[in-house]
């Protein structure tokens, strides 16, 4: 019989139970969705790096001989080492392509993950191609591509479509942050397929696999000491590919903390209030059961089951569908940029735990509310609890209050008595407003970053990346035609009292085609008597203007001491900058590696001495394409925020409505028209919405700020920006949700049956 009561109570109070279900579902859905994609990323990467033996140490150099390789292999803790020659070329089958061509002798370190075709075999006369690049250009196993490297052009049959652990994140240049995989990628060939004479084969890197990863630093020092021809010895910590991937996962952690945290918090808060109210409403029925001789334990079990089963079902559904929907959307987004094996979502033990905790918290609240009622004597529980005396310090008899219209007075008093309900409404609606503002703010911030980077800092149309071996003639030809606006990037090791850092210095000779902004984003000119550091890097390294840094160019042991003379701010690169004049004052020879121009180069496909010609607008478009992907995430946040707002406002309304139906009935009896009662009812929700909007604005900005502060990797420094129109969207969105929900709810007033409501109250 109690089971029947259970089901009938649920049907009778379906609105409340539907909102409980919706809130728990939404909270767990978002949490498990984001968490599952992040866990999937972590798991897939760990397994991929592990199974494909991702290299532990990178040795970059000029010409590693067989002897060098053997020396490295003999170093303590080195398990294996392989040489590689990486050069830049192109594939004629792909328009305007820039291809990293790799020649290898073996493939036991950073092994291929073969998506189609066969694995590496030194004796095969064929080419293994980046599967992303191949797919985007309709190339498949068996097709023949024409590879151009230097002056040589050769045809090769594709024998495998692959991805490689080294190329998880592989943009064309540091200017292009989101790889498009359309005109840039990699191919691998056996060293036997090297198109030139064998003596020209100069391996420029060695991949090292270590036994004990914790002894990597010591191994690096040993390599530096026992090997010649090296320029830089780095490890996974300096690897842009794996570090960017790691940063993406950290970004996911921010989303888990910020977004699902907000949703779960509001959901639990809302459910707690609703369950507490439900038990209080059931007070006399609880008393009847008690008077009939039901044991407290049995009554408790019944009431616990309301919150428990509803939240359990909602939790399980959220747990299953979150990864299927949100996890999938995020995974699809991530896999566009990161070349990893198929990405899937994983429900972690932590997700099960959090979902379980949600159920336990709701059951606990039900238990506590129920226990409070059960503690009372049967005779007391059978009676309705008389309303608490108003202990508010507000003087309701002052002149101002007396002049306020009835509906306002009524609502103020009601709000004071139902503080928890009102607070829950304000928090939930504030969350809705803030999340909408944040979603649009994210879009504003990214647009602002694109504008800052590509319109304010890049004052050129084309960037030419020079070949390492370019000749004086090549250089002179280019600058005479396109202008002498150049820069050089020095890979350096920086030492200060606290730490060592591998980074780079941009040596500027661009004559204003590269611009610099200070921390307030105002343009600055570089002076010739020291180095500049970007603000985010300065903060991380605890450096300031006036401090000195010691540095040396990788591959050269001469150390320099430079004074920091300024702090600049850059959204995309955190490094040091100096002028050519300052570099030369340190008696370092300047050799440009990039040339910038505003001449039209749209018809120039290649230039002697130039590896890559990049159109700024093309890079910008690539970044803007990424924004369209971000938009799908933003739409998801907005939809979730609207559902959250709607459910919270509906819940607030339904609680208020249920508790006041007898009051509305009395007003009806007194002759108040339905519209008048509706306006009283709506007024309270309107005030809640108004307060929520006032709080939601700054909170929306703050969440945007936190997201960009926490989620971005060390390289990025975007300034959180929320346009006025975004605030307007948030406000309008919240108002519309509030208006629609209130309208639906207030229609219920028409259905209040005076006779039944008043009788029920008796």
């Amino acid at each position, binding site marked *: 019989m109690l089971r029947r009561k259970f089901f009938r109570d649920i049907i009778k109070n379906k609105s409340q139970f539907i909102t409980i279900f919706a809130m728990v579902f939404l909270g767990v859905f978002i949490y498990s969705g984001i968490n599952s994609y992040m866990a999937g990323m972590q798991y897939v990467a760990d397994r991929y790096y592990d199974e494909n033996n991702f290299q532990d140490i990178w040795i970059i150099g000029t010409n590693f001989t067989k002897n060098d390789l053997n020396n490295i292999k003999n170093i303590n803790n080195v398990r294996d080492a392989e040489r590689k020659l990486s050069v830049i070329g192109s594939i004629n089958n792909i328009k305007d392509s820039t291809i990293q061509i790799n020649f290898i002798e073996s493939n036991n370190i950073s092994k291929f993950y073969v998506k189609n075709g066969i694995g590496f075999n030194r004796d095969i006369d064929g080419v293994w191609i980046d599967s992303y690049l191949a797919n985007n250009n309709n190339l498949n196993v068996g097709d023949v591509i024409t590879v151009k490297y230097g002056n040589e052009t050769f045809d090769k049959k594709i024998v495998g479509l692959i991805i490689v652990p080294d190329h998880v994140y592989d943009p064309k240049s540091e200017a292009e942050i989101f790889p498009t995989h359309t005109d840039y990628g990699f191919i691998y060939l056996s060293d036997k397929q090297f198109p030139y004479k064998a003596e020209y084969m100069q391996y420029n890197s060695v991949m090292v696999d270590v036994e004990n990863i914790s002894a990597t630093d010591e191994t690096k020092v040993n390599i530096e000491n026992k090997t010649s021809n090296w320029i830089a010895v780095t490890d996974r910590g300096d690897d842009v590919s794996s570090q960017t991937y790691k940063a993406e996962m950290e970004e996911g952690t921010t989303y888990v903390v910020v977004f699902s945290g907000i949703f779960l918090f509001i959901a639990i808060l809302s459910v707690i209030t609703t369950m507490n109210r439900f038990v209080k409403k059931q007070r006399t029925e609880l008393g009847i059961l008690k008077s009939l001789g039901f044991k407290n334990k049995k009554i408790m079990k019944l009431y616990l089951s309301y919150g428990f089963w509803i939240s359990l079902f909602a939790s399980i559904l959220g747990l299953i569908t979150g990864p299927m929907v949100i996890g999938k959307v995020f995974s699809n987004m991530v896999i566009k940029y990161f070349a990893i094996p198929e990405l899937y979502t994983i429900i972690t033990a932590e997700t099960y735990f959090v979902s379980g905790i949600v159920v336990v918290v709701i059951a606990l609240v039900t238990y506590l509310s129920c226990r409070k009622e059960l503690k009372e004597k049967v005779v007391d529980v059978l009676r309705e609890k*008389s*309303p*608490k*005396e*108003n202990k508010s310090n507000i003087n*309701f*008899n002052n002149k101002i209050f007396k002049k306020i219209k*009835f509906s306002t*007075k*009524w609502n103020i*008093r*009601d709000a*004071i*008595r139902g503080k928890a309900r009102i607070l829950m409404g304000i928090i939930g609606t504030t969350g809705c407003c803030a999340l909408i503002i944040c979603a649009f703010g994210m879009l504003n911030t990214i647009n602002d970053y694109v504008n800052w980077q590509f319109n304010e800092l890049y004052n050129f149309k084309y960037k030419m990346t020079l070949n390492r071996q370019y000749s004086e003639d090549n250089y002179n030809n280019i600058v005479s035609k396109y202008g002498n606006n150049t820069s050089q990037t020095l890979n350096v090791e920086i030492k200060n009292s606290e730490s060592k850092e591998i980074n780079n210095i941009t040596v500027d000779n661009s004559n204003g085609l590269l611009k610099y902004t200070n921390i307030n984003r105002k343009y600055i000119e570089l002076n010739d008597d020291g180095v500049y550091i970007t603000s985010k890097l300065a903060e991380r390294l605890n450096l300031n203007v006036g401090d000195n840094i010691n540095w040396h160019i990788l591959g050269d042991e001469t150390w320099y001491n430079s004074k920091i003379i300024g702090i600049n701010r850059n959204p995309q690169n955190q490094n040091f900058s100096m002028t050519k004049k300052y570099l030369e004052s340190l008696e370092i020879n300047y050799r440009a590696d990039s040339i910038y121009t505003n001449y039209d180069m749209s018809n120039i496909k290649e230039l002697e001495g130039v590896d890559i010609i990049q159109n700024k607008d093309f890079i910008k478009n690539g970044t803007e394409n990424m924004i369209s992907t971000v938009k799908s995430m933003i739409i998801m946040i907005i939809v979730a925020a609207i559902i959250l707002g709607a459910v919270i406002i509906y819940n607030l309304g339904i609680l208020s409505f249920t508790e006041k139906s*007898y*009051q509305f009935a*009395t007003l*009806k*009896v*007194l*002759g*108040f*028209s*339905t519209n*008048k009662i509706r306006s009283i009812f709506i007024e309270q929700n309107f005030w809640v919405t108004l307060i929520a909007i006032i709080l939601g604005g700054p909170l929306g900005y703050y969440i945007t700020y936190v997201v960009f502060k926490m989620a971005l990797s060390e390289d990025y420094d975007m300034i959180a920006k929320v346009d006025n129109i975004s605030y307007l969207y948030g406000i309008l969105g919240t108002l519309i949700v509030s208006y629609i929900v209130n309208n639906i709810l207030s229609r219920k007033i*028409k259905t209040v049956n*005076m*006779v039944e409501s*008043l009788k029920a*109250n*008796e």
Partner: protein
Amino acid sequence: MDKIIELFNVTKLYNIGEKEYKALDNVSLEINKGDFVVILGPSGAGKSTLLNLIGGMDSVSEGTIFIDGTNITNYNEEALTKFRAENIGFIFQFYNIFSNLTVLENVELVNDVVRNPINAKEAIKSVGLENHINKFPTQLSGGEQQRVSIARAISKNSKILLCDEPTGALDSKTGIEILKLLKYQCSNENNTVIIVTHNTLYTDIADSVIKVKNGKIENIIKNDKPKNIDEVNW
């Protein structure tokens, strides 16, 4: 005498599940202006249904109702709302006053719906609560709360006061005081007061007594010389 309430062959049906329940069955009656009327009957007899129909809280299934010469039978909800606001003062067993409003505010409340209300403070004074106007209902006794309810009805300046077991939740001494107040409204302010009760002692003080049983009028007793409230042995 002027008739203020006239019911002709009124039937009220309720559907309970698939069954039809006749709460009132072909009821006809007349009530004169300024009368103190008691509707008497056991539980489930149809007393409250009768009161609700007269008060425009519910509509008839069959029959006609005239209030002060106006046929309200076919009024829609909006018209009934206006009718209640202008003509009827309700007094309930459990007071139905708003716990979040002060005494004064509970009474002033009707200013929003009535065109010519009686000053709220005067109405409160007339029920003897002038020293409690800024108190909240929880700070008042049951009798005092019922007085607030009466003050609210008085403030509406209604022709008819409908009282559903107005003393049902009160002790006898307080109940007598409430009855005196209602009687005063009837004799001094010319209000028509209709009380629904199952307390037979009320019959002695009423101008007329309508006995209801099983949804039908059992009989209507006219009392030419109603007793003074103090004369009744309560």
